[in-house]
């Protein structure tokens, strides 16, 4: 089944005539230079921006889905993690269960998955930038939504938590979820199932990473010369339980 289907979606000048189909159980990287429309596409796909065109979640037109069900179907993680009020980490993660009648299911495991159990009672407005992002990711996990839209979740994270986040995304995908993640690191994008390349508000290319991220495209879209050579490789130790 198609989890996310976008047809001729436009948001002012920022996003122009974008069409995209994402099936169940796929991990998708969204890449593109600054200002190419990645965040706009994610927000429009989450139904958070006034847009023209069609957004369909699991066969249902977005506008026909009641608000509470939208919260069950999709989780969106913003690029900025700012909190004015000092809610505890646990209570912010528990907000992910709002659309499920605040049943608290999966809140503890989401906290554990993002290494937040030790910080659970801390006020979120006293955390570091990376910790705040982990709180937002844990909240997205707690929603148990099949469509996950994450806006640059790795940018603020240290290398271990970045890897952990990717492993989590991969687990979600294996359970049938669709995870669309915007990224800047093209080497990370190479590990994804599918890559969508944005340029000036349009999709420049989409497909399997090795087919899409060719030296010609990288030069054309990003203005960089690409070559493959051995370098530093990082992975979680095999004892890790992430």
């Amino acid at each position, binding site marked *: 089944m198609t989890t996310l289907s976008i047809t001729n979606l436009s948001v002012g000048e920022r996003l122009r005539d974008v069409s995209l189909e994402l099936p169940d159980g796929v991990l998708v990287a969204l890449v593109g230079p600054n200002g190419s429309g990645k965040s706009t596409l994610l927000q429009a796909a989450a139904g958070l921006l006034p847009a023209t065109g069609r957004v369909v979640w699991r066969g249902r037109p977005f506008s026909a889905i009641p*608000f509470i069900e939208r*919260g069950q179907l999709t989780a*969106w993680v913003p690029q900025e993690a700012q909190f004015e*009020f000092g809610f505890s980490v646990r209570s912010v993660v528990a907000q*992910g269960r709002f659309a499920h009648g605040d049943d608290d299911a999966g809140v503890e495991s989401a906290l554990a998955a993002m290494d937040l159990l030790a910080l659970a009672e801390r006020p979120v407005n006293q955390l570091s930038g990376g910790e705040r992002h982990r709180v937002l990711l844990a*909240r997205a996990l707690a*929603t148990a939504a099949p469509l996950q839209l994450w806006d640059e979740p790795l940018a603020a994270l240290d290398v271990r938590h970045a890897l952990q986040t990717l492993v989590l995304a991969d687990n979600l995908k294996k359970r049938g979820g669709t995870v669309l993640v915007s990224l800047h690191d093209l080497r990370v994008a190479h590990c994804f199932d599918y890559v969508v390349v944005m340029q000036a508000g349009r999709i420049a290319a989409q497909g399997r990473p090795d087919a899409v991220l060719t030296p010609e495209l990288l030069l054309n879209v990003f203005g960089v010369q690409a070559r493959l050579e051995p370098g530093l490789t990082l992975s979680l130790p095999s004892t890790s339980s992430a």
Partner: protein
Amino acid sequence: MHATTRQRLALPIALTALVALALLSLAVGDMRLSVSEIGQGLVDRDSLAGTILWQIRLPRLLVAVLVGAALSASGLVMQAYFRNSLASPGLLGVSSGGAAGAVIAIAAGWAGASLLVLPVAAILGALVATAAVLSLARKGASTERLLLAGVALNALLGAVTSYVLSQANVSFERNGQILFWLLGGLEDRTWEHAVMALPIVLGAIVLWPLGRQMDLLSLGANEAQSLGVNVRRLRRQLLVLSTLMTALGTAVAGTVGFVGLIVPHLLRLLVGPEHRRLVPLSLIGGAAFVVACDVFGRSVGGLRLGIVTSLVGGPFFLWLLRRSA
């Protein structure tokens, strides 16, 4: 005290404080009444104590309770709406808008025509102020932008009020009435005023179940919407509620500053930021705070309510600014 104990005890304590302060407010005055005299007076309306209670002190108490609850809850709502803990009806100019509306109605002589004129005029003035704040400072605006918008609006609406006052054709008596709005007070409040302010109860009932959604909104509108909140509807409800409650409070007591800033702030420090707790606590705590300020003002020889809340609130606000800087 441990945080969860504080959270559990906060509401009973606030309620007890409100009841105790209410009794004090009925007892204190030119003629002091004991608890048993109050009990007798409430039953026997024709006795001296009964006359004092039913004609003077009960309506005054009721107006104080409603005004306090309204201003405090409005502050809480504005703070969640603007995602800024310094937002409040006074600082944003919504109170001034309500007062300007009321002043115009009094000066034009419409206020005598019907019981409805004054509250409606205050509501219209407050709505104009709210609309202006919204256009000057978008949701989630920085403290600077929000406060500057408030400064500008307060100055502008103050000018409207001063213009009305300076009009030569406004009678001396009406000017006296107008000064009442500017000072904010509960002197000579009657049952009419209590009835005018009664819709505040309705506002409180509508606001009561919105606490959980306010939690989500206070951490970001897009985030709240993606989690399942109908943000557009919630925002509309919150805006209408805070404007109406501020306007009604202003219509019956004039501009009473700082209640909406101090009370939610102190409660947040005590029980944390969850709005399911803060909504009922702000209503009751705001009522208790205003009754306390009124009792204090009366017992030191007739300091008006607006003066007392400003004497308490001004330094508190400066302390907050210093703390957040």
